[in-house]
């Protein structure tokens, strides 16, 4: 065993910003520091104003939806930006004309099953891709990615025929079945698993854990934040599904997103009821956002979506 003595590393100079800050602290007067902070705040003001305007523009349609929903039906076309007069007439109409309660329950069930199934498939597939090297791995992965790039409209009719032949038309299972695998989810999780410490996997193997147990006892617990973020994203995406359910669920009393359509008509749209039904349909997503905000933001940041 040999020990090599080396000289300690030469002290590196601190970053320029730190030096400047230290100089400021020592040499500048408090007034000067305050003035500098003020000028920095002023410099960033236009960016903040722009962001505030963009935030308002983004939030305004949602505000308008609630304002219109809570107006009397006859006032639905009012252009007054201020809320009121408050009325529950539109909600009552929605309650009486479509089975909103069962629609919410069916949609919740569909979104939970779909998000859960997609997550499970994504965990298994990405684990396989990340852990093992096998012949055709790259080609298989490209096929997964390729399926993400194929527009839904291309596979819509073949999937419809398949669901029809399975006798699953007008069932929530028919909506869920062709979407059990999400290539996007597989891609996202594979990125996480690629950066998963190899040592942990090797250690688990040395401990005598099988690949299956390693996945559930080592990998999944360590990926909990990423899985939670992805699950939320998949749930939101499933909840907002419209075109495919509208094709499969011909009975418009099944899912909320299809049910809202019942207030759109050739003889004019019932905007008050549409806004009330849409407000109700948005509530689960809002609740998720309020209580799981950190994970939601994380999901969008990790996926590279803004």
């Amino acid at each position, binding site marked *: 065993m040999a020990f090599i003595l080396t000289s300690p590393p030469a002290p590196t100079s601190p970053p320029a910003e730190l030096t400047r800050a230290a100089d400021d602290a020592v040499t500048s007067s408090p007034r000067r520091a305050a003035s500098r902070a003020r000028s920095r705040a002023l410099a960033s003001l236009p960016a903040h104003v722009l962001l505030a305007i963009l935030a308002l523009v983004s939030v305004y349609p949602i505000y308008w939806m609630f304002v219109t929903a809570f107006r009397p039906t*006859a006032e639905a*076309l009012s*252009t007054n930006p201020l809320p009121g007069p408050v009325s529950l007439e539109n909600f009552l*109409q929605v309650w009486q*004309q*479509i089975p909103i309660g069962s629609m919410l329950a069916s949609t919740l069930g569909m979104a939970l099953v779909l998000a859960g199934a997609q997550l499970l498939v994504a965990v298994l597939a990405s684990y396989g891709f990340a852990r093992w090297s096998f012949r055709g791995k790259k080609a298989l992965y490209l096929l997964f990615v390729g399926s993400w790039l194929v527009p839904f409209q291309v596979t819509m*009719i073949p999937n*419809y*025929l398949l669901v*029809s*032949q399975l006798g699953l*038309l007008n069932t929530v299972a028919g909506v869920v079945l062709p979407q059990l695998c999400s290539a996007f989810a597989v891609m996202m999780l594979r990125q996480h698993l690629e950066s998963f410490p190899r040592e942990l996997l090797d250690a688990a193997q040395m401990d005598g854990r099988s690949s299956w147990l390693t996945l559930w006892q080592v990998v999944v617990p360590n990926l909990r934040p990423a899985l939670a973020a992805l699950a939320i994203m998949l749930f939101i995406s499933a909840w907002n599904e*419209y*075109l495919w359910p*509208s*094709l*499969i669920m*011909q*009975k*418009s009393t099944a899912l909320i997103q*299809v049910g809202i*359509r*019942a*207030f*759109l*008509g*050739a*003889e*004019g*749209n*019932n905007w008050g*009821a549409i806004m009330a039904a849409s407000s109700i349909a948005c509530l689960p997503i809002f609740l998720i956002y309020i209580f799981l905000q950190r994970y939601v933001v994380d999901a969008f940041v990790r996926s590279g979506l803004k």
Partner: protein
Amino acid sequence: MLIHRALALTAAAAAAALTLSACGGASTGSAASAVIPELAPDQKVDITFESYNLAQAGVWSDTINGLVSEFEKAHPNITVHAQPPQGGGAVGSNTISSVQTQLLAGHAPDVAQLTFDGLDFAATQLGAQPISDLVGKTAIDDALGGAHPFNPNAKHLADWNGKTYGIPYVFSTPVLFYNATMLAQAGVPADADLSTWDKVEAAAKAVTAKTGKPSLDISCTSIGGNWCMQGLFKSDGAQVLSDDRKTIEFGSDAAVDTVTKLSQLTKDGVLRNADPNAQYEGLPKGDTAFILTTSALQGSFMQAAAKGGWQLKAAAMPAFGSKPAVPTNSGSALFVLSQDPAKQRAGWELIKWMTSDHAYEQISTKIGYLPLRTSLTQPGGSLYDWAQKNPLIAPNLSQLDRLQPWVSYPGNSYVQVDDILGKAVEAVVYYGKDPKATMQDAQKRAQDLIK
């Protein structure tokens, strides 16, 4: 060898032609005897009925479901599974594609409410059954006759090549609705003569001068409004398709003249450039004073007028100068799609029910659609009181006497042809494109699609 083969083919073709002509002759000659059999009283039949009215919550689906339920009580051996069309399009916009998709999957509805723009496609491609062959012409005449017969101009709107493929069900005509209160404020009498486009323009100019913004909407000149654009063309001596249905004609001089006249309304500052939804909301909100649109919107306009405290009035579709105005219809007919004789018979029974006096009483009073059995609105008819309470339907009813059908384009690309026309009309009327070049280019592209 080749000669032998050619001779064999010729002989086979001749034999096939003879067989086909014999079949044709037989079916023509024995139409009455080849009708589908009546159902036995204990013969249970299940049929599917697809109606776009069921896609809309409220009075639309309630009324149709109510009629279906009454039908089932009157015909205990027939069970009707009523369903809306599938897909996410606007109500009434995807009736054919819905049936097409279900047909692919092998379970098309047995009876379907299809819009008239797809009549050619329904009869030639979709497998709609000629009802006149199924039940005989006499049965159709009997069903559409009675004490309150169908309006003669409405009766044959879904006929194709001499056969009845569909029974007209619900439709509307283009009506000029206007805010008489706004007109009065602009110094135009509430009962002003609005029978020609020149008079409409003069009145609209007065309102525009008062409000400072365009006061007229024409939903026929927007994409999706081609059903009544066809009426505007016909009113100016043009047509979209030749009589032999082989040539697109919306690039003709007369058609170019029509869109040029309408574009002048935009140039004069009276015609507003707005999408169809904004147009439908313009009159109720007081943004505009006039709209030429489907009479089916009357109910929502009446509600808005009552709420806003203004007077709603209606006039027939305006004419171009001294030429007579020719209204066309929107709407739909009921078609039998089933191949099974028992279901066909059950479907015919349902169609008769849905187009009966009783059905129109329900449909007109609850939904507000035009009763095609127009004499129901005459003294002694069950809708007389309703018609008296709703004087706004008078122009709509009177237009039935001058009605011409909404022409469906031939071939599989009828939707694309309609789209090409809609975009060309918008480009000229609202965006000032050269009328002749635009319409002729559209005509050429559309012609390529129907070859």
